[in-house]
């Protein structure tokens, strides 16, 4: 499999009133064609900012300060605004957590789909009528693809006329309209009920298989990752702390944070046993010293952990940011 997206040493900083926040601090990652990468982290871990940076959507007071983002052989950081706009939507698409606010309430679903197709699809015919028919056909096709019944009629409806699950599908349809090579799904199911969540996730997996598209699934739910992703990347306080094949990371985590996260998930099998939550809370990202960011909450922490810890190899295809990873096995 060839690499589609390669991010190396990405830094994104925010100038908050309290000081400089390194929201993304040296993140490197790879996504191969057709692969599904899960990105797991809690709020403030930098998982969403990382991919907003990839999309070139970081807004002031935030700024990408360092690093390279190679997509399909081009460094996105070298591109002009115009070129970047052309890539967004056509080559890389992103769906947001809250479909209600991400869709324009004043335009029908059909109009919003047409907008994207108009902007990006070069295969459309040039004649006006032919073009309009082509857009219509594509729109109907996309809504059908995401499993919306009677798509012709639904094209004329507004976002508020759909249920939460349907809106998420519509957003996915818009994201997929131009057959992107990479879909970044930011918490696509967090706002949805579990039965609807299952429908949407299966839809994404299904479309990925059919279109051969790569997917980055940003989530806080390890269960979602376990069931849908090939590889997983765990983030904590702006850094990647562990990555590797999903089964291995979840089966035998080699970073104390991943291990703590897994032990934090309540499940029926653990009835009667005490949960072992990670103590304390995420550190304030303002003015963090260059040392292991997890050490204040880490059960394995030792004085030697107060240094900057690099990502280290932890077996084939696996890496972890822990000095003591050998002891974790």
């Amino acid at each position, binding site marked *: 499999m060839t690499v589609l997206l390669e991010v190396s040493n990405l830094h994104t900083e925010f100038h*908050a009133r*309290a000081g400089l926040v390194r*929201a993304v601090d040296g993140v490197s990652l790879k996504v191969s064609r057709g692969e599904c990468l899960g990105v797991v982290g809690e709020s*403030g871990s*930098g998982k*969403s900012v990382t991919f907003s940076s990839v999309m070139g959507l970081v807004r002031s007071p935030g700024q990408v300060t360092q690093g390279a983002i190679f997509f399909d052989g081009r460094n996105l950081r070298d591109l002009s605004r115009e070129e970047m706009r052309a890539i967004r939507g056509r080559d890389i698409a992103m769906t947001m957590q809250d479909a209600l606010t991400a869709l324009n309430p004043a335009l029908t679903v059909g109009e919003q789909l047409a907008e994207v197709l108009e902007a990006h699809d070069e295969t459309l015919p040039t004649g006006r009528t032919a073009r309009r028919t082509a857009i219509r056909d594509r729109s109907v096709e996309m809504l059908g693809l995401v499993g919306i019944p009677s798509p012709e009629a639904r094209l004329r409806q507004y976002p508020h006329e759909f249920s939460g699950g349907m809106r998420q599908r519509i957003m996915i349809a818009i994201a997929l309209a131009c057959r992107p090579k990479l879909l970044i799904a930011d918490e696509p199911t967090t706002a949805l009920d579990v039965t609807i969540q299952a429908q949407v996730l299966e839809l994404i997996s299904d479309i990925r298989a059919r279109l051969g598209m790569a997917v980055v699934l940003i989530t806080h739910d390890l269960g979602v990752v376990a069931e849908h992703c090939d590889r997983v990347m765990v983030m904590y306080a702006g850094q990647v702390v562990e990555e590797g094949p999903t089964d291995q990371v979840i089966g035998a985590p080699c970073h104390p944070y991943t291990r703590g996260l897994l032990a934090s998930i309540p499940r029926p099998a653990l009835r009667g046993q005490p949960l072992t939550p990670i103590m304390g809370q995420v550190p*304030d*990202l303002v003015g963090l010293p260059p040392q292991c960011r997890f050490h204040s909450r880490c059960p394995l922490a030792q004085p030697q952990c107060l240094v900057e810890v690099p990502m280290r190899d932890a077996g084939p295809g696996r890496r972890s940011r822990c000095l003591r990873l050998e002891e974790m096995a």
Partner: protein
Amino acid sequence: MTDAALAPTSAPAADSLFRRNLREFRRNRLAVASALVVLLFVVMAVAAPLIAPQDPNATDLFRRLQPPAWIEGGDWAFPLGCDGLGRDILSRIIYGARISIFIGIAVILLATGVGILAGLAAGYFRGWVDVVIGRIVDILLGFPYLIFAIGLMAMMGPGLVNIVLALAYKEWVIPCRVVRGETLAVRELEYVEAARALGAGPRHIMWREILPNILSPVIVVSTIRMANVIILEASLSFLGLGVQPPTASWGSMVSDGRAFILESWWVSTFPGLAILLLVLAINVASQGLRDAFDPRFSE
């Protein structure tokens, strides 16, 4: 990543929302300057007997329509000139500030008090209370403000207290609507429900849980409205329905000068400018307040 995600650990100790808002306000220089202008007018009104160079009611027919000091025929003892009865315009403006500011504050206090009571009751109890208060509000809103006040003044006769009543009679509708709307929103919040779950009664909920959280928009709206009330008072006085002569009021001063507007422009112009300056300062300052205290309302 938002500021909010980082706030908990970095916020300084014991910092109330009010103080944060105040800091926000202080950052807005134009608003602070305007607030100072308003303050200046207030000081002027309070200290009028100390500041005014002349007795505002002393007439002197020899100084009738005397021009401002910098124009030929002027006198620095009467810096802004004299009116048709030879009274010092500057002194009358200084004393007039008392009327404008007193009426502005009195009307707003009264109207806001009534509005808060009525709005809280309507928004919290809803049902028939809301319907009754809502109808009264609708009816009052149906009358043009000035004509309504003129009618009331004609009925009650002139006088300071009557002006306050005539203006407050309709003015309370504005804070009432704001309070009602905010109450409707806040009463559904979980912390209000939490207070109910703990056994709190309507009084506690309205005064302690809801009111402190809706006070910002009310204060903001009230200050904005104060400018309007001052204009209305000036209008009433202009029409001769306000404070009775010889008491100085900006509105009646403008009115007095109408007859000489072409040859003795200063008689009307300076009190007019005073109205303009005070109203403008209140407006700018209240907009600064709004931006700081109630960012939802600003663009």
